[in-house]
Every structure is written in C-alpha cells, then in structure tokens.
C-alpha cells in the first residue's frame, strides 16, 4: 500500500511539486524560527537570567537599592536574618544566598600594572557568600574569607609578610594579613571596554588580560571617601585582590565575600547593619516551581527584582509569534495549493477511481488513499523543511561567529532543535497537507463510478 501511495505521489510530481515547495518553505520557516527562539530563550533563561534563580529585595527600596550610598546612611531597608530563614523554608527553594551592601563610604585606587596609570574611584560594593561563586570560579578561587587564615605576624612593611599577604592595620598594630578578594561583573567589563577605553585612552581588557590580572592588588580606604567619613569606626586602608569576573557580582562596583561586609558594616554602621541583607538570591529546585516560589516570596513581603528578563522574554515571544504567523500563512497558502493540486489529480484519475470502485474500493478507500498521498507529501515536505531549517541554522551560526562582534553570553549555537519541535513541525506540515487534500479527496470518493467509467 505504501509503495502504491509513494508511486502515486511520484506520478503526480508535476501537480504536487509547487505544493511540496510550499510545505518545505512553511515547515522550514516554522522550525527555523522556533528553534532560534528556543535557543535564545535557553541562553536568556539559562545563563543571562537563570529562571531558577530569583533576585529578591525588600518591598520598598530607597536610593540604596540603586547602589548609591551617602556617608553614614546605613543600608536603608534590609531583609533580616529571620526572614532569610523563612525564605529557606519555602517549598521548592533549594538555596538562599544573601547579599549585603557596604553601609559605609569607601574609595579605592591603584591598578598601574593593568591600566598604565593610577585609577581612583569611589567604591560601590556588596558582599555575597563565597559558595555562590564556587561553581563559576572553582574550588581554588581566591574568593573566600581569609581572616582566619592570616599569619598575624607583626610588620611595618609589606616585605615583612609572606608573598600572599600585605602589612595591614590590625586592631592595635600593623600585622600581616591576606588582601580582601573581589569580583567584578561581566557587565562592568563590557562597560569599561565599550566606553571608558576609548574615552580615556585606557587599555582594553579582553578575557586573557582578565585572567592575567587575577591577584592584582588595589588599595581601598574603608570608612572614608571623598564625600566624607563614616560616623563611627576606625577608617583605614586595606588591600583588595582581583579574584575574577562573575555574573553574581554587582553590576557596577565590586563584590567581596559576605563575611568582610558583615564585619565592616558592624564596625562602621552598627550591629543591626551586620545582620540585614540588601537582597537575596533564591535558587529554585525546579523550574516548574518558580511561579509558586515567586508567589510565596511576594507574600513574605519581598519584591522580585526584574533586570529586564520579562521584557526580553516578551520580545522573544513576539519574535516567535510573528514568525509562527508567517509560517502558518505560508502553510495555509501551500494548503490551498495542495487542494488545487488534488482537484487536478482527482480529475486526471477520474477513470482510474471508477475502475477501483468497480473492483471493490469503498468511498472510504478512495478518501483514505488521497489523504495518505496528502500525508506523504506533508511528511516528505516536512522532512525537507526540517533539513532546510537545520542547514540554515548551521549557516546562521557560521555567519554569527564570523561577523557578529563578541558580546556577553554570545552563544556558539543560537538554535535549539528539540525532538518535540521536529515532531510538531512534521505534524503541522502533514496536517496542512491533509487539510488541503481533504475536500478534493471527499469529492473524489463521492464520484459516481458509472460516470467515471463512461
């Protein structure tokens, strides 16, 4: 039976050729843009804005939520430890990583080895648990709380200390201690390379330069900045060491291990500032539970901070919808074309259909044979469409790799062809052909055999 159907399709190749082309084009466009949408969505949701990770802030944030800190202003509204424990108990929450901002003024300088000149800057900073970046940076990362591991040796110069330490200000005298590790964000690097480099004639910082810069030390005054001093505590100079680039780092500023921020906030602001967090990074165990967890967080008086992922998600959805509509229009046109082709086929095969009816074919047999031919065109067209889409995606990836400039999270593969997508595409292609073949097939099956045999 299948060979008869395929042979009939082959016989009708002239009629069905243009229809097949329409199916190939329709399915090709359908698969190509859905795979592109799925690929982009995967990058956005998997890497840029991991959907299973929610950033939450207190319900009403002030200026501090923007990272702007007046001297002595403390932290504004914060999330207390008690609420963090409550969040940890929400069903579906896998991990909670608190984030704490500097509640005191600070400024930093240095970087001659990298920038070719001494750079000065007011410091916007926060602290995160070292565990949060363990996966990104590896087990041997510098990014950890070194305070318990300092040699504590009395010193007057850095050269009096082991190579990994410097001569810092202890509570009573100068002692050897490890520099405070810090991270910067990919966003900050892109901002630096994209604007500051050309504006101030500074060196570019590609990935290899960033790797080479690991361990680079800068000086930072804590409790003191150009805008003024903290109301309490002992302002002093510490050394900080570059530990790497992480997506967990604050967008503009530096991020240090949480323990340092807790101690310094306690010293320069007060005990309550060392236990209130500016935001939480909530990791959800399963993507399906994100909605439930988000709702529970809102009930806990927390706000989920949007970094634009909703808008980007909406843009991708609009992009996908537009091309789905275009591909459906193409399939609709090809469906009409199939319909026309099958009317011509039924006319050409009128006598043959009469013969088949005379030897015992039922109306359902005739209807079925036409529909099977339609399905065969749909499957063949669908397969060619999928192959065309995959070929175009390979070309698209090649062109993107060759001509698109590097940008954060630029993927090697912009497309994601899932088995479900391919199956759905074949079904859609086949369905459009079946719809097109349906009416002519019905008409042919109702043909009076005595007239057909005249």
């Amino acid at each position: 039976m299948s060979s008869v159907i395929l042979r009939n399709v082959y016989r009708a190749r002239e009629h069905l050729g243009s229809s097949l082309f329409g199916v190939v084009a329709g399915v090709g466009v359908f698969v190509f843009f859905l795979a592109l949408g799925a690929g982009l969505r995967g990058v956005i949701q998997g890497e840029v804005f991991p959907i299973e990770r929610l950033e939450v802030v207190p319900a009403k944030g002030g200026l501090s939520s923007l990272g702007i800190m007046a001297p002595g202003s403390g932290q504004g509204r914060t999330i207390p430890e008690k609420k963090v424990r409550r969040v940890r108990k929400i069903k579906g929450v896998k991990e909670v990583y608190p984030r704490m901002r500097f509640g005191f003024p600070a400024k930093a300088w240095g970087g001659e080895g990298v920038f070719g000149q001494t750079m000065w800057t007011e410091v916007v900073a926060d602290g995160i648990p070292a565990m949060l970046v363990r996966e990104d940076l590896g087990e041997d990362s510098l990014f950890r709380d070194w305070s318990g591991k300092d040699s504590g040796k009395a010193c007057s110069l850095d050269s009096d200390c082991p190579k990994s330490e410097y001569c810092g200000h202890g509570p009573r005298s100068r002692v050897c201690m490890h520099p405070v590790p810090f991270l910067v964000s990919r966003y900050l690097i892109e901002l630096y390379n994209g604007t500051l480099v050309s504006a101030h004639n500074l060196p570019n910082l590609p990935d290899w330069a960033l790797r080479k810069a690991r361990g680079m030390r800068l000086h930072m005054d804590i409790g003191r900045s150009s805008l003024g001093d903290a109301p309490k505590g002992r302002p002093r100079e510490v050394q900080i060491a570059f530990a790497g680039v992480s997506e967990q780092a604050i967008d503009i500023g530096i991020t240090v291990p949480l323990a340092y921020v807790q101690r310094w906030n306690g010293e320069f602001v007060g005990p309550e500032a060392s236990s209130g967090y500016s935001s939480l990074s909530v990791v959800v165990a399963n993507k399906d539970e994100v909605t439930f967890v988000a709702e529970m967080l809102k009930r806990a008086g927390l706000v989920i901070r949007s970094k634009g992922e909703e808008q980007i998600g909406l843009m991708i959805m609009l992009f996908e919808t537009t091309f789905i509509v275009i591909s459906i229009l193409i399939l609709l046109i090809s469906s009409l074309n199939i319909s026309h082709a099958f009317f011509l086929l039924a006319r050409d095969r009128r006598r043959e259909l009469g013969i088949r009816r005379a030897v015992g074919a039922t109306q359902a047999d005739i209807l079925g044979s036409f529909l099977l031919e339609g399905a065969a065109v749909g499957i063949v067209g669908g397969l060619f469409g999928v192959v065309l889409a995959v070929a175009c995606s390979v070309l698209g990836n090649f062109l993107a790799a060759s001509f698109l400039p590097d940008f954060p999270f630029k993927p090697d593969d912009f497309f994601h062809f899932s088995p479900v997508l391919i199956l759905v595409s074949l079904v859609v292609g086949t369905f459009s052909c079946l719809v097109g073949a349906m009416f002519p097939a019905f008409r042919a099956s109702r043909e009076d055999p005595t007239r057909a045999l005249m």
Partner: protein
Amino acid sequence: MTDPTIQVSSLRKSFAHGSGRTDVLCSLDLEVDAGEIIAIKGRSGSGKTSLLNILGGLDRDFRGTVRVASHDLDTMVDRALSLFRNEVIGFVFQSFHLIDSMTCSENVALPAAYSRRRGHSITPRNVEKVLERVGLSGLGEEETRTMSGGQKQRAAIGRAILLGPRVLLCDEPTGNLDVETGAQILKLFQDLNASEGMTVVLVTHEDRVARIAGRVLNLEGGVLV
C-alpha cells in the same frame, strides 16, 4: 430447485435531462440461473449498460428489486455494495479499463487490494495462475500501455476472475477487438463458464457474441423481450 443467481423485478431507471426525464428501463423483469450464459442485445442507448451497472452494484439510482447471488442490491449501502462488487462480481468492459501506470500483473491483482476476506490472501503465484488461465503467461511485468487490444482484454478478464466471482458482467467485450481476437475472448468466456461455473451476462450488439449465449434477450423500449 435452486434460486436464480439474478432476479430482477419491476426495474425502472431514468435519466434527467434538461427539464424532463427519459425512462431507459421500464418495469424490467429478468431471471438468470446459476452457470447460465445470457446475451442482452439492443441498440445504442437502449439501456444495456445501465442494466449491467445496476446488476453489478455500480449504479444505485433505480427503482424495483434487484437480487444477485442472494444480495438485495436495492437495500444495500455503499460499503456493502463495494464488498459485493469485490467478491461476487467480475466486470469486463469494452474499453478494458486497465490502469496504464500499472503492469499487467498489478492490474490483475487490483481487486485483492480491496478484499476484506479474512485468511484469503492473494499471492504472486495466484496472480501468475490467473495470467496463465487467460493466456498471458510471462507477460505479468508488461506495461499495459504497450499491450495489444486482445492482451488488454485478457488482462481485464484476469482481473475480473481473480477472486472467483459468481457472476461475470461483460459490456461489449469484443467491441474493440478484431474478429479473430474477439473469437478467442469469447472462447475464454465459454471455458470459464464451463470450468468455473460462472454465470455470464454479455451485453452486446454483435450476433457473433450472442451466439455463445444459451439465451439471447433483446432490450427494446426499456423491457427485455
């Protein structure tokens, strides 16, 4: 006493044309016994082919009662009529009605594609036997469009007898053949009738065809005389 294979009573058939209708069969009665060969003669347009189409279950637009091989055709639905055509009836047409895109053996095997008989599969060997029976041995792979008229009609007869029908309905079976080939085809009908016991209804306007029939009926004015 067995029932006749074909029993037709008060059969009426008319065709619409323009504003009116033309009656072609008017209260026609017919009985044909099993294993009989009958010839139905008549002028062109007398309704011979219409009668054959009704007897073969191809035409359902009639009034009266038609019973063929214990099947009441006037009450049967399309699916049952299709099964009836497949199992009970073998058609042989004047213009052969073979499918040109198929080989000779594929044409002969065509009814098997629509057979609903359980445990009754048609093998290539069965088809080969039928081809031998109709004198086309070794021509199974021939394209039908390259075959002669006589070979085509033999292939059409092979197709008609593949599933062992009880009734063979032949519409001007020698109309497109020369005298010699026509005689061979008629001899084949006689052989099939003798060996298989098939009831044969021949519609013709040729006397030589009518001569092989046990009974000759003339269709005049919509009735058989």
